[in-house]
C-alpha cells in the first residue's frame, strides 16, 4: 500500500508568494523521488496557476488555497480561489493576448494555461461565479 500525504497551504495574493507554493510542491516531489525535470515542471505549473488566480480572480479575500496530495507514483495539486470565475475566452487565452507583437505566433500573454496543460499529465478546470479550481496531476516516470 502506498503512503498518501495531504498538505494544505493558503497563500496571500502578494508578489512572489507563488514561490512558496512552488517550493512546497517541489519539496514533496523530491521526497517521492520525482526526477529533476518533473520537479521543475510541477513548480512551473503551480506558479502559473497561482499567478492566474492572483491576476484574474478578483477575489475579496485575496487568497489562493492549495491542496497537495502526494502518493508514491503521482502528485496531485488543486489550486482554488474564491473569485468571480473565469470565462471560456480566458480559458483558451484569447482574452489575454495583450499588445500585438511583430510575429503573430509570439503571443506575450495568455499562455499560462497552455504551459500547464503541456507540462502536466491531467488538468481539470472548474469555474463558477464563486471561484475557480485548477487541478492537475503529475505522474512519476520510472527512472
Amino acid at each position: 500500500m502506498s503512503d498518501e500525504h495531504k498538505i494544505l497551504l493558503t497563500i496571500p495574493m502578494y508578489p512572489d508568494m507563488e514561490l512558496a507554493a512552488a517550493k512546497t510542491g517541489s519539496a514533496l516531489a523530491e521526497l517521492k523521488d520525482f526526477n529533476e525535470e518533473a520537479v521543475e515542471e510541477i513548480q512551473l505549473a503551480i506558479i502559473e496557476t497561482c499567478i492566474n488566480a492572483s491576476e484574474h480572480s478578483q477575489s475579496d479575500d485575496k487568497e489562493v488555497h492549495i491542496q497537495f496530495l502526494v502518493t508514491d507514483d503521482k502528485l496531485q495539486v488543486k489550486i482554488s480561489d474564491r473569485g468571480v470565475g473565469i470565462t471560456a475566452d480566458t480559458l483558451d487565452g484569447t482574452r489575454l493576448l495583450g499588445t500585438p507583437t511583430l510575429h503573430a505566433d509570439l503571443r506575450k500573454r495568455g499562455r499560462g494555461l497552455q504551459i500547464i496543460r503541456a507540462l502536466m499529465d491531467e488538468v481539470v478546470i472548474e469555474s463558477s461565479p464563486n471561484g475557480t479550481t485548477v487541478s492537475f496531476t503529475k505522474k512519476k516516470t520510472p527512472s
Partner: protein
Amino acid sequence: MLNKFDIQVRESKEHAIIETAGYLNDALGEKLSEKAQELIQNGYTLLVINLEQTTLINSIGISILIEIIEALDEREGTLNFCGLSATQERTFRMMAIAKYAGIFPDEEAAIANL
C-alpha cells in the same frame, strides 16, 4: 523577500552577454529589459542571454523576453539564449521563442552563432 535575483552584463566590442540569476518574473524581467534596452540604445544588436543560473521562468518573464526579441528584430539584431534547463527549452519552443531566437547549450556556442 522570497526571490533573490541578480543581473550581470558583460560587453565586448561586437556583442554583449546578459547573465540572470534567480526567478525570472516581472521584477527580474523588468531589470533584464532595462539592461537589454540600454545595450540596444548603445548600439549593440548581438545579444546573448545566459539563463544558467535562472532557476524558474514564468509566463510574465517570457513575455518580457519576447519584448527584447522584438526590440532587436526592429534593428535586425540577433538574440541567442544559453544555459536553459530542459523544461525551459521546452517552454520556449512551445511559445515560438525558438523560431525568433537561438537556443544553445552554452555561452561559447551562443556567441559563435550570433
